[in-house]
């Protein structure tokens, strides 16, 4: 097989792909970088039904043992890749990033806990008491009341403290805010538990325990709070990983560990995860590829779903970029490491680097087992051991996932409903998030304005919104 690459520049890739499909001048296959552009499940159905994307089922059966094995072995994969009509129109980049899957973590200054002789908080009430102590008892010892008990930032879901704090009252995925109970979808911000959570968060804000900048500042400002010159200022921080708010090379970095999920007054204790689904596709074969072309392309995808294919594509060349693990190399799980990355000369200019693999591009199978099998520095509190620190932190969130979860990006929404639900989602999320901050900061009073807030959902067609997603959830089960 010979590959004729058709390139698109990074910033124009999505538009160029869409234009190619709209114009009919499309290639034999799409091979995408999913964080930049991907084939949504709606588009997979649309172009599959039109015959532009080939159904891959038979090709996989005939030529793709690695893909077959992945679909058999990975519990969520078959539902994730099979459209409601039974066809597979695309293949995902499977990336089971364990620590990334728990995006709503809370971190706390354990040096301050030690100085104030406080235990790691386990309940919402204990957490509040710790923040009060941080505010009032001068844990940084400079004689000034300059401590910031809790902060976050406004651009990433997990960096908003509401994501973590609300999870002690009701499951809160912070994205579409949809929960599932016995197969029925509901909107968390309309529930009485959400009201109680907002009351708690508002009480923290009213006492000056939440930094007002939390809801407006960007990651740069957040990181300056966590990495100041001189003594530490930040007590607790919401972030998917601690390098967001504290420089890894700073001595302060090792002072922050995660707060495990807090137990709320009614016993609720949840964490949201996006682990275990494939939201979109990185690869599709079009009807321009017939016969041997289609066979070659599915074999290409199948090779990339093998361990060797994924390893060489994402990590580079053996002996140059990575090597097999030795006796002293320990992987993230504490077992002998299968692979170890070889440090590269940081002085080499990007244009002079040896390009070998394709990076995280196209269909790949980065299972948790694969990702965890690389050697990592044993001390998690060193910069080189950061992956281990995140792994250990994430383990403290295991077991608190809701029994059922709905992830709208992964749902098989009917293409006929896609535009409508997308518009509804924009308006509903905007309403939820604006009110969330207003209630949390006290600019709206929860006791007097809650009913008006609930009535506001009716004009946003929330019933229709949930009905569309309910249909998608039901067909995807």
């Amino acid at each position, binding site marked *: *097989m*010979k*590959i*004729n*690459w*058709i*390139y*698109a*520049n*990074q910033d124009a*890739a999505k538009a*160029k*792909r869409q234009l*190619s499909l709209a114009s009919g001048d*499309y*290639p*034999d*296959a*799409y*091979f*995408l*970088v999913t964080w*930049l*552009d991907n084939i949504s499940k709606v588009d997979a159905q649309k172009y599959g039904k039109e015959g532009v994307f080939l159904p891959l089922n038979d090709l996989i059966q005939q030529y793709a043992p690695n893909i077959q094995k992945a679909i058999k072995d990975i519990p969520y994969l078959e539902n994730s890749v099979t459209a409601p009509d039974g066809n597979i129109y695309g293949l995902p980049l499977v990336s089971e990033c364990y620590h990334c899957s728990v995006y709503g973590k809370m971190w706390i200054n354990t040096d301050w806990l030690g100085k104030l002789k406080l235990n790691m908080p386990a309940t919402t009430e204990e957490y509040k008491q710790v923040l009060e102590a941080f505010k009032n008892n001068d844990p940084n010892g400079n004689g000034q009341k300059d401590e910031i008990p809790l902060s976050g930032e406004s651009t990433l879901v997990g960096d908003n403290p509401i994501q973590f704090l609300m999870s002690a009252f009701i499951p809160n995925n912070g994205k579409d805010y949809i929960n599932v109970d016995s197969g029925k979808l509901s909107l968390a911000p309309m529930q009485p538990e959400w009201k109680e959570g907002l009351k708690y968060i508002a009480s923290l804000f009213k006492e000056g325990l939440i930094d007002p900048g939390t809801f407006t500042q960007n990651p740069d400002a957040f990181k300056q709070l966590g990495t100041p010159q001189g003594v530490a200022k930040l007590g607790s921080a919401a972030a998917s990983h601690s390098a967001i708010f504290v420089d890894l090379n700073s001595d302060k970095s090792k002072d922050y560990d995660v707060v495990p999920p807090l137990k709320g007054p009614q016993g609720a204790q949840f964490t949201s995860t996006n682990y275990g689904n494939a939201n979109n596709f990185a690869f599709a074969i079009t009807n*321009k*590829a017939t*016969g*041997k*072309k289609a*066979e*070659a*392309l599915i*074999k*290409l995808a*199948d*090779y*990339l779903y093998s361990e060797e*294919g994924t390893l*060489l*594509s994402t990590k580079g*060349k053996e002996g140059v970029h990575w090597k097999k693990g030795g006796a002293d190399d320990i992987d993230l799980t504490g077992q002998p490491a299968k692979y170890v990355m070889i440090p590269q000369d940081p002085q080499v200019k*990007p*244009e002079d*680097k040896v*390009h*070998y*693999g*394709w990076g995280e*591009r*196209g269909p790949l199978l980065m299972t948790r087992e694969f990702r965890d099998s690389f050697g990592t520095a044993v001390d998690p509190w060193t910069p080189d051991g950061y992956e281990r620190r995140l792994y250990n932190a994430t383990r403290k969130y295991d077991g608190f996932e809701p029994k059922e979860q709905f992830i709208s990006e992964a749902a098989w929404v009917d293409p006929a409903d896609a535009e409508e639900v997308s518009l509804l989602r924009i308006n509903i999320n905007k309403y939820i998030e604006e009110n969330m901050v207003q209630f949390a900061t006290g600019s709206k009073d929860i006791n007097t304005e809650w009913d008006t807030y609930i009535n506001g959902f009716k004009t946003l067609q929330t019933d229709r919104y949930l009905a569309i997603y309910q249909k998608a959830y039901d067909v995807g089960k």
Partner: protein
Amino acid sequence: MKKSSRISLAVLLSVLVFIAGCVPAKSKPDNVSGNDADGGPVTVNIFTPKFPNDGEYSENEFTKLVEKNSI
């Protein structure tokens, strides 16, 4: 009758000449084992985003490995 037959024959010949012009001169065998109709490797056109420092994937060693392994 004779004239009519000559016209029909001429028309038939013209059609045959036209068809012959449209058909490749040499009939090619069905492709087997990853080869295209010429017996050479199948060429596939793949769309992908490219980053400033990616280099040309066509010249990439991994591309050649995948090309070799895929079919």
